[in-house]
């Protein structure tokens, strides 16, 4: 049956099939890498909890360690490689937040340690913090009036 395909038909066929399978593959990669990063977080969490720290301390320290790891592997140029493979799997976890801080800061180091590194750290993290904090203040105010 393949022989009856003209070139146009074939390219149309490829077009109709490939975006979906590419999307599917991307989703699987994001799922696997994102899942593994969360398991690493769970390992750190359980380890800290096992040392008898209270739950606030454990969650705070877990985020801090995950952020350290994200920043560290970005500095080693490993995390961006992972990002090319995993897409959202490496962007969505908090390690990806650290990556979004370090990656532009490294790139703009040539513009100086204050207006280069210091300012560009927040190119992506800035909006995240702005919207996150504003949303939390809004729900906090609403919470005040309904309790």
């Amino acid at each position, binding site marked *: 049956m393949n022989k009856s395909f003209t070139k146009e038909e074939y390219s149309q066929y490829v077009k109709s099939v490939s975006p979906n399978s590419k999307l599917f593959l991307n*989703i699987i990669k994001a799922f696997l890498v*994102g899942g593994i990063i969360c398991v690493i977080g769970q390992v750190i969490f359980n380890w800290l909890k096992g040392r008898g720290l209270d739950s606030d301390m454990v969650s705070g320290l*877990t985020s801090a360690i995950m952020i350290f790891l994200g920043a560290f592997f970005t500095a080693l140029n490993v995390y961006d490689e992972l990002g090319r493979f995993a897409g959202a799997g490496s*962007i*969505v976890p908090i*390690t990806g*937040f650290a990556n979004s801080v370090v990656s532009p800061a490294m790139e703009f180091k040539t513009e100086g340690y204050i207006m280069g590194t210091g300012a560009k750290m927040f190119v992506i993290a800035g909006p995240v913090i702005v919207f996150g904090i504003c949303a939390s203040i809004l729900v*906090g105010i609403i919470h005040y009036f309904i*309790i």
Partner: protein
Amino acid sequence: MSYINAFLVGGIICAIGQVLIDKTKLTPARILVVFVVAGVLLTAFGVYQKLVDFAGAGATVPLTGFGYTLAKGAFREVEQTGLMGALTGGFKAAAAGLGAAIFFGYIMSVVSKPKAKR
């Protein structure tokens, strides 16, 4: 068991992010904003706490978990100190993460050498 739940839920949250990247015109930076705000809202509606109870780090490590931390902190401070808590609670709860991001982020950026973009 906690590892399987963390893997599945964390993976699914990341997969949702991938669908948003591939199927919409949202850039990764916007996805992060969407996820944080979604985390705040889902926590406010009481949904996210259930997910955290079920999946642990699978729900707290993705950026929606950052939103969860912010909203939970704001609620707790509001309950303890009143309206002022809405301003202070989010930052207080997220202080460890933000402090780490700024401190480690700056140090790592300064000591590292960027590789040429491919």
